[in-house]
C-alpha cells in the first residue's frame, strides 16, 4: 500500500538514519512511504496562544499539500511533526472560524477541508499491518535484547493526539515485543528530555539525560528506543557531555524504533545509518547475536 509521507526537516538533515530505516522497514511490511512532492517545515512547535493563527499556517499548508495529492492520510515519523500537524488538524476541525481565517489568508492555495488524517508510523503499522502480521514478517528476532521504550512528551500529550494511554502506553512496547525484544518496565517513558533547552541550558539537559539513561540502565535495559530526533539528540549525543560531567555515568545506545524494526525484518544494515548514532549500538547488537 502507498501512503503520503511527510518527512520533516530534521529527517533530511541530522536524523537521516531515522528516515532511511523507516523507508526500508516500511517497504518490508508492504508500505510505500511516498514523500509529498512539495512540503515545508511543519511549524516545529504547536502554538498554544489562543489568538495566534500565524503559527498554524505552516502545518495547515502542509495538509493542503496532502489534499492536493488526493490523499486522505499522511504518515509522519518525527514526534514534533506528528504533534504539530495533528494538533493543527484537530484545531481547525474544532474551530471552523479559524479554518476560514487561515484559508482566507492562504488565498493562493486551495481551501483546506479538514477531512484527512495525520498518522504516526507506529499507529499506521498497528492499524494497517497489525502486530500479529508484523511478528510473522520478523526474520531476525531481537531475542535477548532488553528495550526501554521512551515516548517523551509529544506522542502522548495532549489527549486529542495521543498514540495510546498517556500514563501506561503499550503501543510501542507491543511493537518491540512483536519484533522479539524483551521490553522492560521503564517508569521514565514519558519524562521530558529537556527539549530545546539543549541550546541555551545544556546543563539542564545533561541532568535529564543522566537521570533518564541511568534509570533505564538500573531497570536492566540494553538500549533506549524512541521516535523523536530532538529526544534522540539530547539522550544520545548529549551522553558525551553527561560523561564529561559525571565520569561514572554509564552510556547506553539510543535507537529509533525504525532502526530496530529494520534489523528485525532483515532490512539492509546500511539503511539503519548507525554511523549517525553517537553511542554505537553495533557492538551490543553483535554481542546479542542480533547482528552477525
Amino acid at each position, binding site marked *: 500500500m502507498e501512503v503520503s509521507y511527510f518527512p*520533516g526537516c530534521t529527517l*533530511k538533515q*541530522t536524523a537521516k538514519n531515522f528516515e532511511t530505516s523507516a523507508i526500508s522497514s516500511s517497504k518490508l511490511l508492504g508500505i510505500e512511504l511516498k514523500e509529498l512532492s512539495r512540503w*515545508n*517545515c511543519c511549524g516545529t512547535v504547536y502554538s498554544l496562544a489562543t489568538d495566534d493563527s500565524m*503559527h498554524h499556517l505552516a502545518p495547515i*499548508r502542509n495538509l493542503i499539500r496532502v489534499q492536493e495529492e488526493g490523499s486522505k492520510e499522511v504518515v509522519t515519523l518525527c514526534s514534533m511533526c506528528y504533534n504539530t500537524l495533528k494538533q493543527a488538524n484537530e484545531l481547525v476541525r474544532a474551530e471552523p472560524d479559524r479554518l476560514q481565517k487561515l484559508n482566507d489568508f492562504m488565498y493562493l492555495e486551495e481551501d483546506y477541508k479538514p477531512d484527512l488524517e495525520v498518522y504516526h508510523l507506529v499507529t499506521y503499522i498497528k492499524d494497517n499491518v497489525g502486530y500479529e502480521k508484523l511478528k510473522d514478517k520478523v526474520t531476525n528476532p531481537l531475542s535477548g535484547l532488553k528495550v526501554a521504550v521512551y515516548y517523551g512528551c509529544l506522542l502522548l500529550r495532549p489527549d486529542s493526539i495521543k498514540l495510546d494511554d498517556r500514563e501506561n502506553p503499550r503501543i510501542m512496547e507491543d511493537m518491540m515485543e512483536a519484533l522479539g525484544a524483551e521490553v522492560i518496565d521503564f517508569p521514565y517513558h514519558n519524562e521530558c528530555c529537556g527539549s530545546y533547552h539543549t541550546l541555551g541550558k545544556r546543563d539542564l539537559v545533561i541532568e535529564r539525560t543522566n537521570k533518564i539513561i541511568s534509570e533505564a540502565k538500573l531497570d536492566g535495559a540494553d538500549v533506549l528506543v524512541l521516535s523523536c530526533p530532538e529526544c534522540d539528540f539530547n539522550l544520545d549525543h548529549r551522553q558525551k557531555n553527561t560523561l564529561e560531567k559525571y565520569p561514572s555515568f554509564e552510556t547506553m545506545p539510543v535507537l529509533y524504533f525504525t532502526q530496530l524494526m529494520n534489523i528485525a525484518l532483515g532490512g539492509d544494515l546500511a539503511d539503519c545509518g548507525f554511523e549517525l548514532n553517537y553511542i554505537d549500538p553495533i557492538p551490543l547488537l553483535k554481542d546479542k547475536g542480533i547482528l552477525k
Partner: protein
Amino acid sequence: MTTVKPSGDKPNLPPTSRLIEVFIMGKSYKVPETLTIQKAIEWAGFQFIRSCGCRGGICGACPTIYRTKDDYKLKVGLACQTVAEDGMYLVQLPFVPVQKAIYNIEEEKATLAAIEKHYPETFRCVQCNTCTKACPMDIEVMQYIAEIIKGDYKKAAELSHSCIMCGMCAARCPAELQQFNVAMFIRRMYGRYVLPKAEHLKNRVEDIEAGKYEPMLDELQQVSSGELVKRYKEREWEPEPYEVPDWKPKDTKYL
C-alpha cells in the same frame, strides 16, 4: 499649455489616450493611460535618482508597492513593467535594508551550520507565504526557504534562480528574514561546490589570459570609425534559436 514637463524616455501615446488619476505617495496626479508606472511618475514631473535601472524588467531596481481601486490587496510590481491604472496608490521602494554576510567562498560550504552562522533568522520562517505574494518575479520564495531549511540546496538554487534582488520579500516578511541574500549565498555555494566546472569557459579564460585576442583588439583600434560602423553592420549572427549543431561563422580566423 501643460506645466508638467515630461522627462526620461518620451512616451509614445496612442491618440485616443485619456488621462487617469494616480496617487504617487498620496498626492493626486493626472497622467495619460497606457504608461508604465515608471513613465507615469516621470510624466508627473519626478526625476529618478534611485529606483530606476535597466527599464527592461531585469535589474530589480524599481519595485513599486501599490494598491488598485477598490482592492485591499497590497501589490508589488516592477515600475518599468507594470502599467499604471486609474485610482492606483503607489510608492517606489528603492532599497530594502538587509545585512549582507561577508565570507570567503573558499572557506564556506552549504551546510546547516553555515546558514545558522550567516543568516540565522532563516529558521524563523512561519511559512506564511507573504514573500511569495510580494515577489514581482513570481518566484516561490517561501518554498525555496523551506528547501534551504530542509537542506535541499539544489532545489533552493533552482527555485530562486530568477531573483533580481529587489528585496520586496525581505521588506514584507513578518519573521524578518533576508530571503534574497540567503538565496544568493546558497546559489554561490551551489555554483562553487556542486555544479560541474564549465570546461569551455575555463579554456576561453586561458585563451584570453594567453593573449590570443590581443591582436584582434589591436587591429580594431587602428581602423577608422567608418570602417568600424561598416563591420558592425555587416557582422554575422549565429541563427537563433541556436539549434544548428556545430554552427560556425563563415570567417573562422578569429576562432
